[in-house]
């Protein structure tokens, strides 16, 4: 632990470079088009629109579900953040390879900067969500909204942890980014983005599979917990008819605190993992 705090002090010493790297990431991201931020949030919004179109027309649950689009958007924003941050960080160290071969810097600031610049974009994306919620859907702001910052913080820890591990592995193994891309394609269906986790938990197949354990394991996925938490703290529960007559489980602060703890532990462990390998990134005779 002492060792880790010394490494963090070194990161703090290089904060000017860290801020420049964050600025660079944001500038490059918003520079390639005149519309900047608006353009870069368009893809997830279009995805939400298409999912809403497909599910509203093809499924009965979505057809009866008034705020279905808000539910999809509340899942798509955190999911897009997770994906882009981890994918960007997988390339981040290799992009700076020519520099770290010649100049000293604490190498963790490279994936950390990618994680933070994506976090800033993520935070701004929620403004679009709240605008949609308040001005278009005219939905009330729930008191459980005070848990929203805790969820955001937990997700920042989780994304940074994944970024550290993936950026480090990608230096040594060139296929990491392809594996990650494939997993992300699966995530869109496995995670409760287009549907509600209760539909999985209540489904007769899942309840009987492995003596009920399959459903339990499904909710061990930290991203599923986060997505479910975001929705429940911001949006009113769907009408029981959406869930075949069952009421949705209420917002559970315990699960939010649990995910915060799990994400923090993941962050510490991934930092240990990164530090054990960071000196080998450029070592070639």
């Amino acid at each position, binding site marked *: 632990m002492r060792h880790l705090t010394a490494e963090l002090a070194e990161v703090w010493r290089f904060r000017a470079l860290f801020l420049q790297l964050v600025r660079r990431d944001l500038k490059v991201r918003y520079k390639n088009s005149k519309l900047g931020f608006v353009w870069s949030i368009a893809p997830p919004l279009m995805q939400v629109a298409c999912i809403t179109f497909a599910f509203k027309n093809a499924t009965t649950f979505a057809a009866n579900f008034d705020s279905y689009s808000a539910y999809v958007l509340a899942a798509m924003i955190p999911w897009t953040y997770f994906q882009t941050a981890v994918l960007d960080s997988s390339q981040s160290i290799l992009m700076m390879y020519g520099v770290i071969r010649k100049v000293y810097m604490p190498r963790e600031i490279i994936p950390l900067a990618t994680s933070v610049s994506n976090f800033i974009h993520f935070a701004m994306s929620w403004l679009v969500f709240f605008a949609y919620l308040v001005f278009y859907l005219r939905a009330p702001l729930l008191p459980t909204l005070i848990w929203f910052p805790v969820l955001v913080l937990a997700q920042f820890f989780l994304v940074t942890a994944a970024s550290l591990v993936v950026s480090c592995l990608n230096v040594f193994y060139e*296929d990491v980014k392809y594996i990650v891309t494939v997993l992300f394609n699966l995530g869109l269906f496995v995670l409760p983005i287009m549907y509600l986790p209760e539909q999985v938990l209540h489904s007769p197949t899942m309840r009987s599979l492995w003596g009920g354990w399959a459903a339990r394991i499904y909710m061990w996925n930290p991203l599923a917990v986060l997505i479910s938490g975001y929705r429940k703290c911001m949006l009113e529960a769907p009408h029981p008819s959406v869930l075949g007559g069952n009421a949705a489980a209420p917002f559970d602060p315990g699960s939010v605190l649990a995910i915060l703890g799990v994400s923090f532990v993941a962050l510490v462990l991934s930092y240990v993992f990164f530090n054990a390998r960071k000196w080998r990134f450029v070592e070639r005779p």
Partner: protein
Amino acid sequence: MSGSPKPSIRLAGLRKTFVLQHRHAGSLKAAMLSIFRPPRLERREVLRGIDLEILPGETVAVVGRNGSGKSTLLSLVARVYKPTSGEVTVNGTVAPLLELGAGFHPDLTGVENVELYGAILGLGRREIQAQFDSIVRFAFDRPDLAEKIDTPLRNYSDGMKMRLGFSIAVHTDPAILLVDEVLAVGDEAFQHKCLDKIAEFQERGKTILFVSHDMVMVRRVAHRVVWLQDGVVLRDGPTADVVDAYMVEPGPSAVAVASPG
């Protein structure tokens, strides 16, 4: 050495061993498959006990044939590698000259790249802004070049990137400048400016450590030459003596002089 000033760079018993993997698993798939067949590891001792002191104001050239450990030595002074054993002590800020503007981003303008690159070399934003005009003037002395500073870097030629990179590095005003074979950048006029800048550094008492195969350059710039062979210091002394001995050395080193890089 008692009574002399504190050295800028001090290497004591410095060793560096690389662990090479034959049949390196370049992919996660291959790494998983090779769990049952652990790769054969080879240890290569690149530096085998270097003791060296470089005083403030000295310009020291490191020569030696390819694979003698010159670049490894420079990387250890830059703290890019961790020593296997021994110690590297550096007094003062170190600025390495990067090759070809590594660290530049093609989508950012020249101005934005100067800020980023300056930060990489340890400058704060205010320091960069204070030096900005001087950096641009040094890199682009012609007005048709200077007006490109507000356009994205992908519009720059390689020569322009090199000029800008060199200019930022020398403007960071380090106590110690590390140069790895990049002194000869740009056209003849710019090379001349680089040598002038090096001379100015020397006059101001800065320490310069550089690696070169170009003996003309070494004779012109260095006060002292360290000749590395197989990871140990073979000779260390005044430029003329060591370069003369190095040039007449028969065998592989003569080949290395003929084909730098």
